């Protein structure tokens, strides 16, 4: 209402007030006060003040001047729009107050207002509640008013319509979200049910409600109230209440309220009592799971209270046994029950209960049967047991039931429980029930059960059975089971049809958690299909089918099944098109798994035909079998499910993949990886894959994946993989070894692998290969051999894995050595042969290896040596290794061969010390030694730098004490050096010769080397002449061997050597001629070709010796003969010097004889010659100086290069002096004018490596050159 209209209303009231003013003072003052109060209230802001004012208004109007109500109603109603909820609530109270009074017309005004307030969704909750309360009252008033009204006006119909509308709204509020509103709605519905039902004589109506309207008071032809519609509404309301009561989420407050409401209804309308009790029974066993423990006890308590109050009613007589049982279950004692019974029936009930209790003490069986008898008697049904036992008490109790029976309406629960009762009498049934219930018991006791459980006081008594039957039947009904007694059912239905509504309230669905009923409920469901107990019930549904069908012949049945399966299989394409492919797979696999037998065969055949395209079936089936194996699916056949079926299936699938030739093994891997279990047989198949030529890779891969991804069985898989590591086939073996090596990094697998590998290795200790090993050999011939002894194949098999692990775990080396020591030589040989790769993998820096070398076990020396060789083959030995080897050599192993691998790591002196021993070894080894020592100087620096330069080596060889080593070995060694032409270039040799020559005494082999150098490098002749001259200075003739060599050298170097010979003192010259007579004539001719002047320089004795031969011409041919004989000897001299020596001695003696004969001529000649030579020397010296100067200038550049090169090749080890000396004392230029320069120029490109190193040194040549220049 708007403000304007309200103000106009007030003015109307004001008018009224002024009109009445004069007539009645009391009224005046009252209304005056009311107006004042209302006006005040309008202006007030505080709620409580408003309320106080309004209360005053109410007081004034109600108590003093009811007549004023009409005037002020609207004004008061204005406040329903007040902001304050409490004010609004008051207004409603005011309306209710007024409505209750006689002037019912006010309803016309009030009802729309109420409806408005009720409809407001924003309405405050307390206002809504108040409206509901108010409605409950006003509904009664309205109905009463409508009934009693003489004439029903339109406005009354309107009011009724509004009331009806509000009723609808309130009933829906049973589902409100607010607990309080629900509670109020429950109360409202309660009164609605009472009002819309017929009051009967046994109704217990409270005195206050005596005058309330009820259905029976409604006249037949009322304008707006139709009895049938209202009755339907009443029953609908009751259903709503019962539905709420059974709702699983109901709160305890609502539950209490609901129970209270239902009890009240039962009291006032006993017709509904049986339904209410049934609902209570269901509630009792199905308390909402949401309730807390204390709430459960609260609810149970109030349920008990309600039941007691019902028990007291006379109208509950026929249903009393049910109530009593329920009370018993709730923990009420018989005493309490007795106390609450109406006095009339107590006398007849008491004795019977006592009777029951007494019987309860006797043996259970008789008790049960008796109880059944009793019940059956009561039900007036034929029975087989104990009819005669009927006792007077039972008979006495009979009348109460039979008399009341016709009055009560039968419910479905009643009929069902009647049917169940006799069945519970059969002990077997009960036992079955209990057993089945045990299976479905929850793991832990639900709290509700714990809270509500009360020991069953009268177990086994008729009452208890009766009650149990009822409880079960209420569950049955809830589950939708119908009684078999169709006659009675029809009766009920008929009765229901009369009422035009359903026979039962729509029962709630079975709840998730039920309390006491958990066992019974589930067993109740199972019974129809499984146990004897429920035959009666089962018959309702399935009886007829069983009656009319006969089992098929087994053959026919299985035939049908098989063909059915086949059809499903054939329907593959169709099902795919139809989108049922998944279902098809499911059906097929489930059938095959559950029934096995032929079905399995059929399906397998189909599946394996093309496993790749049927992989979906394969996997589904595999899982199905697994689930079956694990007992995840219920068993249908009796046979025990073993792993065999699963195993068989998996292997069949894998096998079928193996026989396929194509290489795509994705399915195989998938199958292996996704199979829930890998059985032993499956592993065997996988192994077959590994050994298969085509599939080995995927097999190995699968195996590895298993190891990586299935830790549970890892040991199994690992052993399998390890087993493959000594497979005969190389690719299998290497692949598996590779995998094992990778797995070896994992700590958890390490031990297993190591143990396995060591085990393998240790089989080598056995006298002959193990049978398993032999089996692995493919060729029969090998197998035959292997039976007798270790053959190479077998030995290698045992070693592969171990050696593969060596580079990963160096520690293994010790065990290998242990085994090595203990095995026979064939095995040792193989071990040494296969060692290379693993040892390289270890590397020489490994501490374990060093340790091993250090503590080399006895007998493993060869192993160590081999390892050292392998290690130092490509790289220089590390200082650590050298140290260990040296120690070992010094301490234990005196075999010099031990040193060879580390030779270049040793000190110079050590090498020199070891040389005599080394060169005594067999030629191959010596070659190796020299290779090692010289290699580094060949430009191949990778193996390290030898401690000895080539020159030093050669010098060292010359200096070997002949006591330590025979000359032959030394000669061989030196010739090895000479073979290395690349290393022993003429420069190197020059250095060597220079150094050797400096020594005193001269090395025995000096001249041999000189000659050899000359043979190799004829261009060295100039240099050698120098050497020879120096040798003369050193009185070379004092050392016979060297002297002999000297002479030979002179022979070879004719004519250059003439000059040298001429410098010999005469006796030696003579000795020369005596040893080599062929020299004399050329020399003499040479001297004669001199100029006079020159000849004058030659001392006379020399000339004399020279010419001595001329006088003795007659002996010439004799001498020649001697020389001829000598020459071959000389040629062989290098090979057999001792022999040579003897021969020359003989010759010398002969010559000496001749000499003595021709003494005078000899002396003359010699002197002349000497004179000539002296003169020539003088001239030559002069010339020399000139040409030397010229040459130096010309060649300084090339010489510099040469120099620096030589220096580098010596690597600064020796001093530079030898080479420098060569240049400072140049070979006589006159004798070989063209030689020296050409040699030098040509030498440059000789050694490409030198050139290279030259280039690499280009960074600093200028410096070196300048230093060189300054020196020159």
């Amino acid at each position: 209402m708007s403000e304007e209209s309200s103000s106009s209303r007030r003015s109307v009231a004001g008018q009224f007030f002024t009109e009445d003013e004069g007539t009645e003072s009391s009224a005046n003052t009252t209304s005056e006060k009311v107006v004042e109060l209302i006006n005040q209230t309008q202006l007030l802001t505080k709620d409580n003040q408003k309320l106080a004012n309004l209360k005053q208004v109410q007081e004034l109007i109600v108590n003093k001047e009811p007549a004023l109500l009409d005037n002020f109603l609207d004004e008061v109603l204005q406040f329903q729009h007040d902001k304050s909820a409490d004010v609004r609530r008051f207004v409603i109270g005011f309306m209710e107050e007024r409505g209750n009074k006689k002037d019912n017309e006010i309803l016309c005004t009030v009802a729309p207002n109420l409806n408005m307030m009720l409809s407001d969704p924003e309405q405050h909750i307390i206002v809504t509640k108040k409206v509901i309360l108010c409605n409950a009252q006003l509904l009664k008033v309205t109905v009463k008013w409508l009934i009693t009204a003489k004439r029903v006006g339109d406005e009354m119909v309107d009011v009724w319509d509004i009331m009806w509308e509000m009723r609808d709204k309130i009933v829906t509020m049973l589902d409100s979200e607010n607990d309080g509103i629900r509670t109020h709605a429950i109360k409202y519905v309660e009164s609605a049910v009472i009002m819309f039902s017929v009051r009967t004589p046994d109704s217990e109506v409270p005195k206050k409600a005596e005058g309330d309207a009820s259905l029976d008071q409604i006249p037949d032809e009322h304008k707006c109230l139709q009895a049938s519609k209202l009755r339907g509404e009443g029953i609908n309301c009751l259903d709503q209440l019962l539905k709420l009561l059974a709702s699983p989420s109901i709160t305890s407050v609502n539950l209490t309220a609901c129970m209270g409401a239902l009890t009240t209804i039962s009291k006032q309308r006993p017709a509904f009592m049986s339904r209410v009790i049934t609902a209570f029974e269901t509630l009792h066993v199905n308390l909402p799971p949401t309730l807390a423990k204390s709430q459960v006890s609260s609810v149970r308590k109030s349920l008990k209270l309600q039941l007691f109050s019902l028990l007291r009613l006379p109208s509950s007589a026929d249903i009393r046994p049910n109530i009593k049982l329920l009370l018993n279950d709730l923990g009420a004692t018989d005493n309490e029950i007795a106390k609450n019974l109406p006095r009339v029936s107590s006398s007849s009930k008491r004795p019977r209960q006592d009777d029951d209790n007494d019987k309860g003490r006797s043996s259970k069986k008789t008790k049960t049967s008796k109880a059944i008898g009793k019940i059956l008697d009561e039900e007036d049904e034929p029975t087989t047991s104990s009819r005669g036992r009927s006792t007077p008490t039972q008979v006495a109790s009979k009348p109460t039931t039979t008399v009341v029976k016709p009055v009560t309406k039968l419910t479905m629960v009643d009929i069902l429980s009647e049917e169940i009762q006799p069945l519970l009498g059969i002990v077997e049934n009960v036992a079955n029930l209990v057993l089945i219930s045990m299976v479905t018991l929850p793991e832990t006791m639900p709290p509700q059960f714990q809270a509500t459980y009360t020991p069953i006081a009268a177990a086994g008594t008729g009452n208890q059975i009766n009650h149990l039957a009822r409880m079960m039947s209420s569950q049955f009904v809830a589950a939708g089971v119908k009684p078999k007694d169709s006659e009675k059912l029809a009766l009920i239905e008929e009765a229901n049809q009369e009422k035009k509504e359903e026979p039962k309230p729509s029962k709630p669905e079975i709840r998730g958690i039920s309390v006491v009923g958990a066992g019974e409920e589930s067993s109740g469901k199972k019974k129809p299909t499984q146990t004897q107990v429920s035959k009666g019930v089962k018959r309702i549904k399935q009886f007829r089918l069983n009656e009319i069908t006969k089992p098929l012949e087994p053959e026919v049945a299985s035939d049908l099944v098989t063909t059915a399966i086949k059809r499903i299989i054939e329907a593959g394409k169709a099902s795919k098109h139809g989108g049922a492919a998944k279902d098809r797979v499911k059906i097929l696999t489930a059938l095959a798994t559950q029934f096995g037998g032929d079905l399995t065969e059929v399906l397998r055949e189909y599946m394996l035909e093309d496993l790749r395209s049927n992989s979906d079936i394969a996997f589904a089936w595999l899982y199905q079998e697994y689930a079956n194996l694990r007992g995840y699916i219920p068993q249908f056949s009796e046979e025990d499910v073993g792993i065999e079926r699963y195993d068989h299936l998996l292997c069949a699938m894998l096998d079928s993949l193996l026989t396929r030739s194509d290489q795509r093994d994705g399915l195989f891997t998938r199958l292996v990886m996704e199979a829930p279990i890998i059985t032993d047989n499956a592993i065997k198949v996988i192994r077959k894959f590994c050994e298969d030529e085509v599939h080995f890779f995927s097999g190995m891969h699968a195996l590895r994946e298993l190891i990586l991804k299935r830790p549970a069985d890892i040991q199994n898989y690992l052993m399998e993989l390890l087993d493959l590591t000594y497979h005969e086939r190389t690719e299998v073996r290497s692949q598996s070894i590779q995998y094992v090596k990778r797995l070896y990094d994992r700590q958890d697998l390490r031990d297993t692998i190591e143990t396995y590998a060591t085990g393998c290795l240790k089989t080598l200790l056995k006298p002959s290969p193990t049978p398993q090993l032999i089996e692995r050999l493919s060729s029969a011939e090998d197998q035959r051999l292997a039976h007798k002894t270790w053959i190479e194949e077998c030995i290698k098999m045992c070693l592969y894995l171990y050696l593969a692990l060596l580079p990963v775990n160096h520690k293994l080396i010790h065990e290998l050595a242990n085994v090595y020591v203990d095995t026979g030589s064939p095995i040792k040989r193989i071990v040494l042969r296969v060692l290379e790769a693993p040892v390289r993998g270890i590397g020489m820096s490994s501490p374990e290896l060093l340790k091993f070398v250090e503590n080399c076990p006895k007998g493993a020396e060869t192993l160590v040596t081999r390892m050292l060789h392998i290690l130092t083959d490509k790289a220089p030995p590390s200082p650590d290794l050298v140290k260990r080897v040296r120690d070992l050599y010094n301490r234990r192993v005196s075999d010099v061969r031990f040193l060879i691998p580390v030779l270049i790591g040793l000190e110079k002196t050590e090498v020199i010390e070891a040389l005599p021993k080394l060169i005594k070894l067999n030629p191959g080894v010596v070659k190796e030694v020299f290779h090692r020592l010289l290699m580094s100087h060949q430009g191949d620096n990778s193996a390290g730098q030898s401690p000895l330069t080539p020159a030093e080596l050669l010098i060292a060889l010359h200096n070997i004490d002949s006591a330590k080593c025979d000359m032959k070995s030394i000669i061989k060694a030196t010739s090895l050096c000479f073979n290395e032409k690349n290393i022993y270039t003429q420069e190197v040799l020059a250095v060597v010769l220079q150094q050797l020559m400096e020594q005193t005494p001269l090395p025995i082999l000096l001249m041999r080397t000189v000659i050899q150098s000359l043979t190799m490098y004829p261009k060295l002749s100039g240099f050698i002449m120098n050497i020879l001259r120096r040798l003369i200075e050193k009185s070379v003739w004092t050392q016979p061997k060297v002297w002999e060599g000297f002479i030979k050298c002179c022979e070879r170097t004719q004519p250059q050597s003439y000059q040298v010979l001429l410098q010999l003192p005469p006796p030696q010259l003579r000795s020369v001629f005596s040893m080599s007579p062929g020299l004399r004539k050329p020399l003499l001719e040479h001297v004669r070709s001199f100029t006079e002047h020159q000849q004058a320089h030659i001392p006379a004795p020399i000339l004399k010796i020279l010419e001595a031969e001329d006088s003795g011409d007659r002996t010439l041919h004799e001498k020649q003969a001697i020389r001829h004989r000598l020459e071959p000897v000389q040629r062989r001299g290098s090979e057999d010097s001792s022999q040579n020596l003897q021969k020359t001695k003989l010759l010398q003696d002969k010559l000496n004889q001749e000499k003595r004969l021709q003494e005078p001529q000899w002396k003359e000649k010699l002197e002349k010659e000497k004179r000539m030579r002296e003169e020539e020397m003088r001239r030559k010296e002069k010339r020399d100086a000139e040409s030397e100067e010229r040459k130096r200038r010309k060649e300084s550049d090339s010489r510099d290069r040469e120099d620096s090169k030589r220096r580098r090749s010596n690597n600064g080890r020796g001093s530079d002096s030898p080479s420098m000396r060569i240049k400072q004392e140049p070979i006589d230029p006159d004798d070989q004018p063209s030689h020296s320069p050409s040699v030098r120029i040509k030498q440059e490109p000789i050694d490409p490596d030198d050139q290279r190193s030259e280039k690499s040194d280009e960074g600093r040549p200028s410096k070196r050159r300048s230093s060189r220049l300054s020196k020159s």
Partner: protein
Amino acid sequence: MPKLKIAIVCSSNQNRSMEAHYLLSKKGFNVQSFGTGANVKLPGSAPDKPNVYEFGKTTYDEMYRELKSKDKDLYTQNGILNMLDRNRRIKSRPEKFQHCKEQFDVVITVEERVYDQVLEDFNNREQDSQTPVHVINIEIQDNHDEATLGAFLIYELCQLLENAQDLEDDLDDLLQEFEPRAERDILHSVCFY
């Protein structure tokens, strides 16, 4: 929002209910107290000789004086006189719940027997206004110490109730919350006037 009307009910309306009545009224609650027993019983000289008074007739003051004259030492020692002295300053005499026609919002009982009697009473009453009333039971033993403790529990509970936005909607949760804190079993039911 007007204050909740609270009734505290024990058996004799002497110890437990009065203790809570005292505390709550001191804290400003709208509270009354009642007994549900057939008579008002106070311990006497021996267990089988209690002092029995009729509800609604004898005032606390009369009882006080009577007992004081009977055996002042005994009744001082067992705290009865002290208790009666407190009671007579709160209200004149014990009241029986069943006789009370007033309507409450909340009825708090202190033991299960009393709770049962209250429910029974509500059940037997003729419902008229259909106004809901919540009956809550908190177990409190009948001695002075427990009564004091219990009074505080009741006080705590009443605070919760009083502060609730929508009592009826919140009550369930509220009690569930309160129960473990109080460490006592709580019974709760809704009845109607």
